[in-house]
């Protein structure tokens, strides 16, 4: 066992591309945890998608043995944290298992909004934060400016800021010393009954649910009878171990140690992240302070392009959920798109990642409807209805008002882009809050803005308006009633559910106009004129007409080639078979798909 005084549990808070994974790799290499020739870039990012996109989605941990200049051997547990705003809840999990954090900032780019938000989160959680400037080897590096910026937002003095190059290894041994000397050791009582925090879990096909845990009090031994305090689940500790980074089985985990626990439980839903593991006898009285379950913020319909794939989609979602408790879904039927699911996501990146995994790992071809948020509809009888699909909006006869979720938005940007950002935020119904100069050149902006206005393409817009320099972060800020309306799209008088959307009244006309023009182009001409209309509460706000088809005939039969003639007709028939009837109108599935895809 390692004396708790010789343990340091820490995480690295960093923006995407600021070099977190490279630094982790370097720490492993310098301490000899991984031999240089066995180094795989980014040891911690195990998912293919994580490697490809250079982002961390799941928390991970690795234990490193390090002999400090004082001659003592220390156990350093690095608990990885995701860097994207969608996964903030994962960050709070990791923070709960640590006493300290490295705030890693790119020496050329300075601090970014999400990093700052996470750094504040760490400080609020009582963690000791060491500011570290990375990439000092870059020609554009400006460590003095960035140091001043860090001191400006975090306090302390410039001398506290470390400078490293994870790439060359410069400053890494000083950093290791600082981890040992500046971060506090875990405080726990080995005489007390076991209390261990489950800070992550994943599903392994062969071994069932694997928990990542941090022992706070007591000792966890193989074979112990355990109880999960929140769920009441009883299970045995079949196997425990640590990541070095390779999986290494151990007999015991002591106060302050971080490792994994396998109980033989196969149902991921039975083990909740944030739960406290204790021994069956003697049992702890109080669970550790957990943290709230992540709540989906963005909703979208996922439909298989081929209706026959519905069951495969269900299986795939079930499997993904095993490792992604934030994913929620329920079956949904659309007249236009058939059977599918309404799926809740943490944010747009989460949505994109889930969809990409479904398409790539499960070979599904999917249609995604426009993302929306969860509304609250107030009806005349005083009830509140949760609405996360436009179809669920109560009838307008009883609908009093609609409230939508707002968020507090923080943007950090070079000062020259403040004007264009203000313009963007105003277009999106944002209200200006505080504005703080981090340095003469960099500004921190605060807004309150409807979530619906930033889920679509806000981040892309922000990036393009600021040449990629601005960064953003947001947190929920409750519900407010807004002037929201449902826009329906009607084909020959029949509403097409997939195209209904809830928008602010000021934007309804634009949406309606766009949609009818698009559909006019995409839907083939029918035997009769087909009006394509957009309507609010039955009132038409936009209209186009698909003129009746007048000509559908081959002029002649070339040289008596009846076989070819018939083949052409068979092909047309095949196309017709794939049409969906909306009232009397035949619509190719592709038309629905294209209409929904254009804005992606």
């Amino acid at each position: 066992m390692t004396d708790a005084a010789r343990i340091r549990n820490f995480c690295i808070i960093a923006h995407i591309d600021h070099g977190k994974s490279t630094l982790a790799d370097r720490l492993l290499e310098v301490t000899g945890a991984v031999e240089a020739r066995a180094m795989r870039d980014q040891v911690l990012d195990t998912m293919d998608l994580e490697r490809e996109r250079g982002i961390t989605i799941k928390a991970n941990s690795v234990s490193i043995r390090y002999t400090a200049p004082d001659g003592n051997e220390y156990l350093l547990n690095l608990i990885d944290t995701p860097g994207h705003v969608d996964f903030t809840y994962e960050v709070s999990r990791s923070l709960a298992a640590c006493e300290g954090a490295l705030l890693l900032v790119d020496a050329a780019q300075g601090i970014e909004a999400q990093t700052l938000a996470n750094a504040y989160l760490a400080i609020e959680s009582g963690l000791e934060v060491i500011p570290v400037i990375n990439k000092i080897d870059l020609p554009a590096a400006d460590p003095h400016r960035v140091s001043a910026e860090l001191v400006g937002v975090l306090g302390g003095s410039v001398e506290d800021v470390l400078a490293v190059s994870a790439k060359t290894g410069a400053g890494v041994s000083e950093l290791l010393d600082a981890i040992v000397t500046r971060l506090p050791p875990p405080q726990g009582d080995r005489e007390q009954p076991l209390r261990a925090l489950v800070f992550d879990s994943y599903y392994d096909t062969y071994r069932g649910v694997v928990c990542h845990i941090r022992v706070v009090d007591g000792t966890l031994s193989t074979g112990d009878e355990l109880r999960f305090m929140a769920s009441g689940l009883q299970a045995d500790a079949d196997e425990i171990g640590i990541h070095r980074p390779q999986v290494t089985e151990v007999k015991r985990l002591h106060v302050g140690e971080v490792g994994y626990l396998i109980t033989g439980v196969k149902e991921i839903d039975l083990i909740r992240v944030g739960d406290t593991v204790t021994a069956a006898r003697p049992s702890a009285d109080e669970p550790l302070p957990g943290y709230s379950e992540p709540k989906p913020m963005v909703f979208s319909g996922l439909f298989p392009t081929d209706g026959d794939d519905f069951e495969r989609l269900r299986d795939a979602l079930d499997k993904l959920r095993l490792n992604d408790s934030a994913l929620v879904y329920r079956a949904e039927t659309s007249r236009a798109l058939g059977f599918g699911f309404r799926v809740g996501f943490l944010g747009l990146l989460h949505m994109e990642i889930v969809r990409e995994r479904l398409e790539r790992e499960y070979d599904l071809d999917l249609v995604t409807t426009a993302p929306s948020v969860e509304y609250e509809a107030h009806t005349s009888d005083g009830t509140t209805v949760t609405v996360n699909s436009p179809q669920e909006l109560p009838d307008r006869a009883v609908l009093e008002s609609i409230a939508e979720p707002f968020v507090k938005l923080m943007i950090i940007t070079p000062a020259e882009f403040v004007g264009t950002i203000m313009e963007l935020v105003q277009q999106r119904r944002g209200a200006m809050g505080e504005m703080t100069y981090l340095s003469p050149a960099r500004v921190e902006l605060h807004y309150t803005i409807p979530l619906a206005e930033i889920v679509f393409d806000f981040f892309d817009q922000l990036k393009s308006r600021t040449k990629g320099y601005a960064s953003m972060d947001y947190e929920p800020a409750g519900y407010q009633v807004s002037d929201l309306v449902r826009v329906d799209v009607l084909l020959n008088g029949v509403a097409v559910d997939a195209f209904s959307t809830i928008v602010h009244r000021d934007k309804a006309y634009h949406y309606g106009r766009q949609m009818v023009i698009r559909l006019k182009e995409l839907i083939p001409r029918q035997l009769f004129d087909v009006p394509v209309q957009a309507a609010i509460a039955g009132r038409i706000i936009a209209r186009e007409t698909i003129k009746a088809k007048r000509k559908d005939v081959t002029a002649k039969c070339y040289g008596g080639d009846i076989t070819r003639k018939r083949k052409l007709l068979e092909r047309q028939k095949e196309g017709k078979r794939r049409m969906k009837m909306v009232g009397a109108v035949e619509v190719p599935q592709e038309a629905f798909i294209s209409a929904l895809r254009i804005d992606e």
Partner: protein
Amino acid sequence: MLAPDSYELAALAARWRSAYVHIPFCRRRCPYCDFAVVAPGDAVAADIGGLTDRYLAALHDEVEMEAAWGPLDAVNFGGGTPSAIGAPAIASLIGRLGDRFGLAPEAEVSVEVNPEDVTAPLLEGLRAAGVTRLSLGVQSFDDAVLRYLGRLHTSAQAEAALDACLSHFSVSLDLIFGSPPESLESWQTTVQRALAAEPHHVSAYALTVETGTELWKSVRNGGAAPDPDDQADKYEIMQAAAGGAGLVQYEVSNYARPGHACRYNLATWGQGEYLGFGLGAHGHRDGVRRRNVRSITAYIETTAAGRRPEAGRAIVPDPERERLILGLRRVCGVELGPWMQSALADPGMGRLMAAGVVEIAAGRLRVLQPLLADEVGVTVLSLSL
């Protein structure tokens, strides 16, 4: 409402036996044409005289390879440009067909002729060979449209040729409408001049972009494409004018004075049998549809080796359904027979009836809007029996 033409003719056509003979040679390849054609500039056409001789010899051989049949009620020379090989070659082929299969009394012997080929000796030669009908490729009376279509004649030449032909033959005037440079007025003038000449028959085809043609390449590269609505307008102009001139519409693209409907055409849509000789030709006999190779080298070599130059053959799948699909191109419609209940119960057919596109009456399915015939054909393909 479009009136049906003769029902009796439809019944007769189903029993007619015809032959199609393909003459692939052209002086120029038209930009919209995807027929099996040999034109100057093609690698094989270096010695066009020798090639023609060998091709004609192969044609005679192919006729000899066909099992005994007949007599023929109709013979149709198409192309390519049949008039380009001259009257003697055509006469010789007619003789060969007559020897092999026999010609029925009153048989229709029809030849496609380009206006620039029309000379007194050609017409005399064809007349003497027993040709009864000429199908004259006028296409348009607008010289700008003729140039766009890549034709070698002028409207004046066409008019002169028409006069010369009309005195000795049953004449069909072939037109192409709806090309991008053709205005509505241009088409109206073409229709007026065509009908003023009092031909026995008019075929008016909408310009179609066929895959692989020069026109197709041009459209693909952003060039002007035929507009279906413009073509529909022009189609209706033709329909309206034909009636006034005593021409009865009997098929999607064909109009005739009584007694002058094209037999080969009627047989095609009446599911009649026909033999196909020559490059890329199609035949239909004994429930089998067959097609010939499209390469002239392969055609000549295979035939010389004593084998039919066939590229493929297939037993007609579901011949009853095929009969319906073909027959609905005819203005008099097609007998539904055992399909009656299915057609009446079909929702797709119901929509077509409601929209006034088809009529089911007196046991027949009739397309009232021929421009939507393929829409009806697709519905027929989906009928269950």
